[in-house]
């Protein structure tokens, strides 16, 4: 496509993103050895989601590409979240 501008992400951005992801991985491992009760799982999932978002936005270019990709991905994540919520309401209240 002639009219679509390509944003070239600098190498340095990729390296900084990588360092951030590694840092989050170290944090998630360390947090496992701290006693937080039910919040341990919540924290692990929160950090995983954060890492996932960074991969989607930077490595998968959602932040730089045409907005249509961002909208599509958000819809899929919303549908998936809805399925999880409905499933757990089912199991928690049966």
């Amino acid at each position, binding site marked *: 496509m002639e009219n679509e501008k390509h944003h070239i*992400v600098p*190498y340095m951005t990729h390296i900084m993103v990588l360092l951030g992801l590694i840092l989050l*991985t170290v944090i*998630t491992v360390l947090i*496992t050895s701290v006693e937080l009760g039910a919040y341990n799982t919540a924290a*692990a999932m929160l950090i995983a989601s954060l890492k996932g978002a960074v991969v989607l936005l930077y490595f998968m270019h959602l932040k730089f590409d045409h907005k249509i990709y961002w909208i599509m991905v958000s819809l899929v994540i919303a549908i*998936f979240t809805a399925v999880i919520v409905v*499933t757990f309401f089912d199991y928690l209240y049966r």
Partner: protein
Amino acid sequence: METVTHTHPADAHRDDTASKIGMWLFIFTEILLFGGLFIVYSVYRYMNPVAFHLAHEELSITMGFINTIILLVSSATVAISISAMQKNDRRTTMLMLVATLILAAVFLVNKYFEWGGKFEHGLYPGSDLMKSLSNGDMLFFSLYFFMTGLHGVHIIIGMVLLAITLAKVRSGRVNGGSYALLENSGLYWHLVDLIWIFLFPLFYLIH
């Protein structure tokens, strides 16, 4: 005049945006495939919290951590290879793709030793030991083998895609003006990384 109109017959119907949307749609089916498995895992873990906690201690956090780092670095090398291609730097692109393939191979070797260790102790799907386990333990290990196995298959597919891309970058068919294949293979590889980001805490880091 005729020769001019037929200079690039292959480019006549090229639409990189459409090809990328197609790749994303395929990725959505993959997300829902693994998403379904994540829901199955969550429900069974909710129903067998103690068994899942005890069973997960059989897995090595160090091994899982190393493999997580390997995949994160390989994701960065793929991302850098795309930036390099956009700058028309073929050498860096190929170097980064080779690095990615090596990292992917190391990941699989680690997986081989990890699974091999379990197999040696008689722990594999359908083994006598597996059948003698309690319900919760059996569910944990069955899901572990199934989900990491399916993820491993995706690693192999990703390696094939990246190898094909590498060959085409080498021959010049993928270049600074036409690199949809590199972008799409890259998206697939990031998906493989994305799935592992969730597999790692769910199987290795149960508190």
